[in-house]
Structure formats: C-alpha cells, structure tokens
C-alpha cells in the first residue's frame, strides 16, 4: 500500500469522469426542436429588422446629403462673389494718396524692381511721384469701391513696384509680411490684403477682410456623447483554448474568427485649439472660438467590416459620414484701403498699411465623407470586455452651408483624425451589447495653410456609448 501522489489523485478523477455519461433529459430533443424552429423565424425577423433599419439609415443619409447638397449649390457661387462677413467697424477709404516726392528719394520710370527703385531712390532721383490708384472694382462690406491696389511679389520675395511716369502705382501692404513669400502673386484690393490663392478665390478679389480667409477649417470632431445602434453580423463567441491533453486535437483558433459587419451612430462635440501661426506675420489680435457652444455638436454615421486576426486583435475598415456645425468668432485687424504710412528706414522706402480693428463670426454646417481604418485589442473580460481601440479617419468635405459669415474660407478639403478609446462591451442579452467608450482624438494634420496666420488643431475628448446588435 502506498499513498497516492497528486498526479495519481488527479488521474482517478480523470479516468472516471472524463467519459462519464448520464441520462439526457427526457424531453430534451423536443425542447431543442421547438427552440430551433422558433429561433429560425426569430432570426429571420431580426435580419429583416436590421436590414430595414440600415435601409432607413441610408435613405435618411441620402436625403440629408441631398438637402445640403442642394442648399450648398444655391450658395455655391458665393466663392467668387461678395463676402457676408459681419464687420462691426466701418472702414474708411482713400482712393488715391500722393506722396510728396520732395520728401522722398526719387524713382525713375524704368525701374522694375523694388531693389532697383530703392537703389535709385538712394541716389536722389527727382520728379517722381508715389501714388496709389484705385481703378478696379472690389467689394468691402457689400459696398462697391472702385480702387485697385495691385501688389505683387517676384520669386525672390521682393516687392515689385510698378512705376509709370514717375509714379509708384497701386502698391502697398505689409512689407514684412511679404518677406517670406515666394512663387506666388499677391494683390491688395479695397484695402484688403490677400495672402494666398485659395481654391475658388481669384487673387485680389476678396472682400476687404484681412483675417478671415485663414481661419480656415476650425472644425474637427470629438466623440463626446455618442449613442445609437451598432449592428454586427455574426455572433460573438466565447473562445476556448483547446486542451493539450493527448487524444484531443486543438482546433485552430481561426475557425472562430469571422468577419463582422458593423454600423455605428455617434454624436460628438469638438474642442479646437486655434492659435496664431508662429511662422507667419499676422494681424490677428484675438480669437473667440466659443469652443463648447452647442453649435459645435455633430454626429457621425459609420459602417464597415471587422476582421478578427486573433482572439484579441481585430481590425476594422469602413466609411464614415460626418456632419457638424462650427461657430467661430474672431477679432482682427483690417487694412484701410489706400491708406499707407510711408516709412524710410536705412534709405529704404517701406509702405505700411493703416490698420483698423474688425470683428467677424462664422457659422456653418459641414458634411464630410471619410475612410476609417482601426484596430481594437481585447485586454480582458468575458462578460464585460475591455478593449483598446485606435482608429484613423481620412475625411473629405462633401459640402457645406454657410449659416452666417464667410464660411467658404473655413473649409479644408482633407482632414485626418486619430482617435483612441478605451472600449467596454457588456452583454445585455444574446443579441444586444452595450458599448461605453471614453475616447480621445485629435487631428493628425495641423490644419494650417502655408500662408495662413492661424494654426488649427482639433482635440476631442468624449464619451461614446451605444448598442451593438448582433445578427444571428
């Protein structure tokens, strides 16, 4: 006789219980067939419900897009027309200004560049008159003003002054601002300084607003409060590692890894960080973006496919439609038309525009469509499953409507977002999963045109919650 070891103790249980059989419930089969039959009809009904919901969702989206597309088309020509930016301060105009040549160095008729002009100015040419002519029509605050102040740069970033008959015509602007420009032409009309050529903008044909064109795209998205219906095809399974004991072949894990389709609805709010572009010389004095205004609320519809690669790691790909409104208030300095201060420093003539403080605001609704690529990694949990979720979205603006203000200049066509979330999924029943997802997102690209005086980066902190519906 000897005492059993632990292994032998285990073996006794294993030998006698691993193939233990007992009587099945008497009505077992009947109950099964009953439920299977009921389940089939229920499953079919569920599929119809989900498909119907998806169809309705798509129809609603299409209707919505159609509405805004039409709305935008009605306003679409505004890109090349007058501005509706609110200006609280009226700007005065001086259509022509002459400078006493006796007070300055004289310039010859045939000077072509500023450098030449200034060089000649230094050697004391006479009978030259610096004047600013206003010959073209532009608009400011919806008033027609006849004036032209053409302002251009050559490729060497030097201001070129057009000199005719001893006069410098139609030049002006912020010389220091122009210092870093190259390969672009700039003009000033109606006292407004145009700093870059935007998609629909004719150079020098804007509305006497100095700052707004570069407040572009102060949008972004932040899941702050999301709710709605998520649908996934296929059922979630409890995945079991296979035993390694002899005689039992482990099944390959991939058998349980099936693609799933999902749709998602999410409401969000956005915080945009807007700050002056340090790389540029700007006149923006103050920005008030009213970050948490209700006007910034929006929603996102997304759908796609989830591809599990292992028990824990899943990637997903889809499309997402984004709608949001944004409201930006700002204060800035505007250049008074045809009003310049001429400063001579180190034998150089510098024309400085006269500035006045202006205020404006923009409200607009924006629709964009994007690609979504993400991954979620299951950390732990079976009933309450926790994931780390990271995704990126590349969006392109479909259309927008300007509710108020010159919104067209606030749009950038491409937006890239990175979102990270701590995702929790909780089984409500066999078909429904509750999802809670605190998330943090930000724009990968600092939305800032080369010539923009503003740097804009959306930061999103939010709470996303929803329901996942599984189709069986």
């Amino acid at each position, binding site marked *: 006789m000897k005492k059993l070891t632990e292994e032998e103790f285990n073996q006794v249980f294993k030998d006698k219980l691993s193939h233990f059989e007992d009587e099945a419930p008497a009505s077992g089969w009947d109950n099964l067939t009953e439920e299977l039959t009921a389940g089939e009809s229920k499953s079919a009904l569920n599929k119809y419900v989900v498909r119907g919901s998806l169809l309705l969702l798509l129809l609603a989206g299409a209707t919505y897009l159609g509405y805004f597309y039409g709305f935008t088309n009605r306003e679409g020509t505004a890109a090349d027309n007058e501005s509706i930016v609110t200006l609280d301060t009226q700007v005065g105009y001086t259509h022509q200004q002459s400078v006493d040549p006796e007070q300055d160095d004289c310039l010859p008729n045939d000077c072509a560049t500023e450098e030449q002009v200034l060089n000649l100015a230094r050697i004391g040419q006479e009978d030259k008159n610096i004047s600013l002519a206003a010959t073209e029509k532009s608009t400011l605050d919806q008033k027609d003003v006849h004036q032209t102040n053409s302002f251009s740069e050559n490729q060497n970033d030097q201001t070129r002054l057009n000199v005719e008959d001893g006069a410098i015509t139609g030049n002006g602007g912020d010389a220091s601002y122009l210092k870093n420009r190259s390969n672009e032409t700039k003009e000033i009309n109606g006292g407004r300084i145009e700093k870059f050529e935007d998609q629909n903008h004719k150079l020098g044909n804007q509305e006497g607003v100095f700052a707004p064109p570069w407040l572009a795209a102060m949008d972004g998205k932040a899941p702050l409060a999301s709710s709605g219906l998520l649908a996934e095809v296929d059922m979630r399974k409890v995945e079991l590692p296979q*035993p390694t004991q002899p005689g039992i072949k482990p099944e390959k894990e991939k058998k349980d890894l099936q693609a799933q389709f999902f749709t998602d609805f999410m409401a969000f709010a956005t915080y945009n960080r807007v700050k002056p572009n340090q790389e540029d010389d700007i006149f923006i004095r103050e920005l008030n973006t009213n970050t948490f205004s209700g006007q910034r609320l929006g929603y996102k519809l997304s759908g796609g496919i989830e591809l599990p690669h292992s028990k824990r790691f899943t990637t997903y790909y889809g499309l997402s439609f984004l709608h949001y409104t944004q409201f930006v208030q700002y204060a800035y300095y505007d250049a008074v038309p045809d009003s310049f201060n001429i400063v001579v420093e180190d034998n150089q003539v510098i024309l400085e525009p006269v500035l006045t403080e202006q205020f404006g605001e923009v409200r607009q609704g924006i629709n964009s469509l994007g690609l979504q690529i993400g991954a979620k990694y299951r950390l732990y949990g079976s009933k309450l499953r926790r994931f780390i979720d990271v995704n990126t979205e590349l969006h392109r603006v479909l259309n927008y409507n300007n509710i108020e203000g010159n919104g067209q200049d606030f749009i950038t066509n491409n937006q890239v977002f990175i979102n990270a979330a701590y995702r929790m999924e909780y089984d409500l029943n066999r078909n429904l999963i509750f999802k809670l997802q605190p998330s943090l997102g930000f724009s990968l690209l600092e939305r800032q045109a080369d010539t923009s005086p503003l740097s804009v980066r959306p930061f999103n902190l939010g709470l996303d919650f929803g329901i996942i519906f599984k189709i069986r």
Partner: protein
Amino acid sequence: MLTDKELVKECQRNNQKAQRQLYEKYKGRLIGLCLRYTKDRESAEDIFHEAFIKIYREIGNLRKVESLYSWLRSVTISTAINHYHKNRKHQDCLGIIDFEESNNDYDRIFSDLNAKELLALVQALPDGYRVVFNLYVIDGYKHKEIAEMLDISENTSKTQLLMAKRQLKKILEGMNITRYEKIN
C-alpha cells in the same frame, strides 16, 4: 448510421434526422460533462440545452470534422463557463459543504469510488473551485488557458485548484475515507 463526417455534413444542410442522430449519439456524454460543471441536475440540463442550440447554430462553420466530439465538448464547456459567469455573483460564496457522511465505508479507499460518487464530490465544490478543477484535472486545460477563459490570473487558477483539492480531501475525510491508497 452516419459517420461523424456525414453527420456534420447533413447537419450543415439542416437535415433534422441527422440532427437527431447527432443528439442521440452524444447526449449521454454531454450531459455527463454538464453535470460535472454544475452543482445540480437542473443547471446541467439548462447548459445541455443551450449547448445543443449553439451546436446546431454553429455547426455550419465547422470545417474540420475529424474530431467532432472534441468540438462538441469545447462548445459545451464554453456554454458552461458562460453559465458560470452569469451566475457567479449569486453562487460564488464558499459555503459549508454538506455532504452525507458515510458510516459504513470506513474501509473503502479513494480509488474504489465510482464515477457517480466522484461526480457528487465534484458537484459539492463551490462553483469557482469546481470549474477550475474540471478544466484542469479532467479536461486537461493548462492554468494559462484557464486564466484566459475565466478572466482570472494564473495564480488565482492555481489557488482555486489547490483549494478545490483541499475541499475534496476534506469531503473524503467526512466520508471516512482518510487514506488515499492503492494496492501495489
């Protein structure tokens, strides 16, 4: 009589006769399995029923049919674990084990106990202990796998197993089986 491979094929075509045959063929072993993971027959029957529903619904995804029972068993165990998770809040207390003491079998040794007696021992364990004991000792899972399945740490799994064995030994002592001996 259809082979396992044919059974799976027919079940995948929703052939009810094949489904019935599958049920008849494996019902005994699967109810036995369910009984091991629960403390009473009623719960075992619930798991048994739920497991078969799952089996019929998921058999369409089964590609490799060489070891049908292995797959059936894993589905049933996963169902049992789900059941355990759902009910753990209400059942996971370590109460005093009531086990009828045997006055007559003083001379019996552990290895002579039959399957039903051993099953009764296992069923007498608290839920957490019982699940770990079944998974490790009888079904051959490793602690790492058990930890993953039950959402616990490996150390917890090991502790649960140790405690389960202590409980079993305690019960055995209660049955006057104080020596776990066998004849050489």
